[in-house]
């Protein structure tokens, strides 16, 4: 990279068939991906899915076993980290403890021989509103302040590509939400390409233009946050991004624009446009908040799916909504979120209920039934419900 000058603003990042194998396992498996210049791209996935390895491959901190990495059209696969126009905001921040905040921010500029490094560093610190602490050592700052210094240290170099490795992971919830907004507005201001790695689906969805959900070294699905949420293609995505009720059964009937799946005597209709497969065993799903709960048997209408009767096995109140767990014989447990728009719970534990939803809200997955379940056993609906409840509780406490 040329000394003494900055790159032009953000650049495209292209990964072509990138694979990284460690002894004993494959962290990244034949990954092909293009991130357009100026976008805010999030790699989302559980720990161990290969997202951090992908980031480190782009930064040059790991060498790819196979494949090519291009930044702004230039092949950087075999260049060293210090030769790449890329900067990282590390999860641990990795602020040099023996240097002041200002020296940390100047570090990269000085290495590249850029003139008036000091002034540029002060500007970057002003952008993150920490210029008054320029003379301190990193240990003397709070977690949120350290995070902002790490950000300033990276963006001051105007990298073509800024990599964010769970940079908000160490912050508490409130600060995290605040930093999410700040990061997003800074990205708008500086116009760089951001590649953000996170396991927090809410963070990915609120911040990124495009989210790629990664699992086992591959990208399961990629798209705008709304698209991923409303129309997940795989059970993994359906359950990693929010919650889903999934049912598997044979396709029993087909019309010009819909399929119907047979499920313990019930028929579940899904539009063809929202189903990835139209024959054989098909898994269909519905988000809990799209379900309507009835205490009396509703009259069947063609635009709705109907399940029931079932019994309410659990009710948990969480402020904005109430979560019901409904057992339907032959179908299993179904999670329902009901907005608390009326006062008090609608139905009590043990009550007999029916569930309906608009057929346009359902979705059909790509997964082959019987194929090894892509989501770990601890992410079945019920566990997720409990986890979510716990999280909400702690969130309420923290708030």
């Amino acid at each position, binding site marked *: *990279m040329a000394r003494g000058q900055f790159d032009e603003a953000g650049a495209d990042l292209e990964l072509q068939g990138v694979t990284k194998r460690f002894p004993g396992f494959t962290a990244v498996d034949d990954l092909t991906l293009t991130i357009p210049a100026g976008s805010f791209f999030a790699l989302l996935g559980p720990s161990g899915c290969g997202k951090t390895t992908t980031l480190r491959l782009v*930064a*040059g*901190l790991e060498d790819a076993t196979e494949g090519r990495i291009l930044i702004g059209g230039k092949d950087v696969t075999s260049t*060293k*980290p*210090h*030769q790449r126009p*890329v*900067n*990282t905001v*590390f999860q*641990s921040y*990795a*602020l*040099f*403890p*023996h240097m002041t905040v200002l020296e940390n921010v100047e*570090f*990269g500029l000085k*290495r*590249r021989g850029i003139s008036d490094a000091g002034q540029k560093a002060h500007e970057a610190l002003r952008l993150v509103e920490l210029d008054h602490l320029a003379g301190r050592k990193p240990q003397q700052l709070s977690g949120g302040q350290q995070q902002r210094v790490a950000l300033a*240290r*990276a963006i001051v*170099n105007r990298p073509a590509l800024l990599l964010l490795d769970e940079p908000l992971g160490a912050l508490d919830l409130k600060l995290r939400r605040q930093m999410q907004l700040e990061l997003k507005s800074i990205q708008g201001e500086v116009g760089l390409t951001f590649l953000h790695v996170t396991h927090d689906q809410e963070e990915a969805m609120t911040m990124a233009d495009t989210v790629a959900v990664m699992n086992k070294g591959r990208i399961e699905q990629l798209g705008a946050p709304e698209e991923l949420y409303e129309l997940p293609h795989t059970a993994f995505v359906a359950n990693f991004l929010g919650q889903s009720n999934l049912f598997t059964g044979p396709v029993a009937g087909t019309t010009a624009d819909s399929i119907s799946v047979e499920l313990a005597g019930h028929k579940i209709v899904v539009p063809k446009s929202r189903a990835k497969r139209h024959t054989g065993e098909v898994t269909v799903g519905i988000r809990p908040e799209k379900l309507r709960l009835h205490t009396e048997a509703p009259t069947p209408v063609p635009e709705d799916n109907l399940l029931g009767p079932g019994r309410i096995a659990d009710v948990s109140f969480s402020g904005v909504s109430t979560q019901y767990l409904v057992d339907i014989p032959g179908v299993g447990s179904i999670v329902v979120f009901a907005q608390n728009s009326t006062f008090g719970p609608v139905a009590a534990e043990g009550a007999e209920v029916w569930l309906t939803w608009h057929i346009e809200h359902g979705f059909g997955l790509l997964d082959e039934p019987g194929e090894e379940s892509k989501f770990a056993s601890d992410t079945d609906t019920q566990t997720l419900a409990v986890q979510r409840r716990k999280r909400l509780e702690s969130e309420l406490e923290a708030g």
Partner: protein
Amino acid sequence: MAFGAFASTEAPAVEQAPRRKSRVVLFLLLPGILYLLLFFAVPLVSLALTSLQQPSLTGDIGSYDYAFNWQNYVVVIERYGPHILRSFGYAVTATVFALLFSYPLAYFIGVTLRPYRLLQGLALVLVIAPFFISFLLRTLAWKQILADEGPVVSFLQALQLMPADAQITGTAFSVIFGLTYNFIPFMVLPIYTSLERLDLRYVEAGADLYASPATTFRKVTLPLSAPGIISGVLLTFIPAAGDYINASRDFLGSTDTAMIGNVIEANFLVLQNYPAAAALSFILMSVILVLISFYVRRSGTEDLV
């Protein structure tokens, strides 16, 4: 390990240590503190007094009276000036060699071997292995290896790299060589300790911020391992400056290589010139105290022990 003694660690727990019954503290502290006062502090005072004594009027050899005879210091500096200078010269040279030898080794054990815990442990055992064999015997082993008929000299002479009548043992080179060898573990261990704690993400951050491996080493790794280097330098320099085994005639030295330790020993145990030995001890001690006080000013007293 005790070699962390000089390595500055964060001093925790002091603030939250509760003030509890003073009788318990006295019971815990007093025996050990009294012991150290009696057998460390009092001897230093006794040494100070001895250094000012003058020969007894009875004229017996080894018999002295208390006095304020500060001229003892002038006398020993005049007589043993070369030995004093030589001691510090040898010790500084050996410390520099030990540092150059040890840093890469400590880096290898602390950083390269970090993913392999068992290998790392075994490598450390190799470093401290010399501690488990007699200091004197390993020095004698070098004497025999470097002796005139020994393998090294024969080899060098066969290659004509060394004149036929030249020697290794008994020279300044062999004394410095011995000092370097014997104190290598004291240099490796504290540097290892600080490199082992070095967070490699700082190194990655350096690379990420356009620093070449060499610059990253100079700007990040080296300053972050500075506490270990300082400890290692002190732990090597102090015993090396006071050592008299390596420089002894029966080991790697000759009369021309005698260091301050040798003359202290000779004056105390052979010549029975106790005031001279005490004055020399005090000169050695004061130089080292100056070094230590720099160190204490840098890192505070809390980290000392």
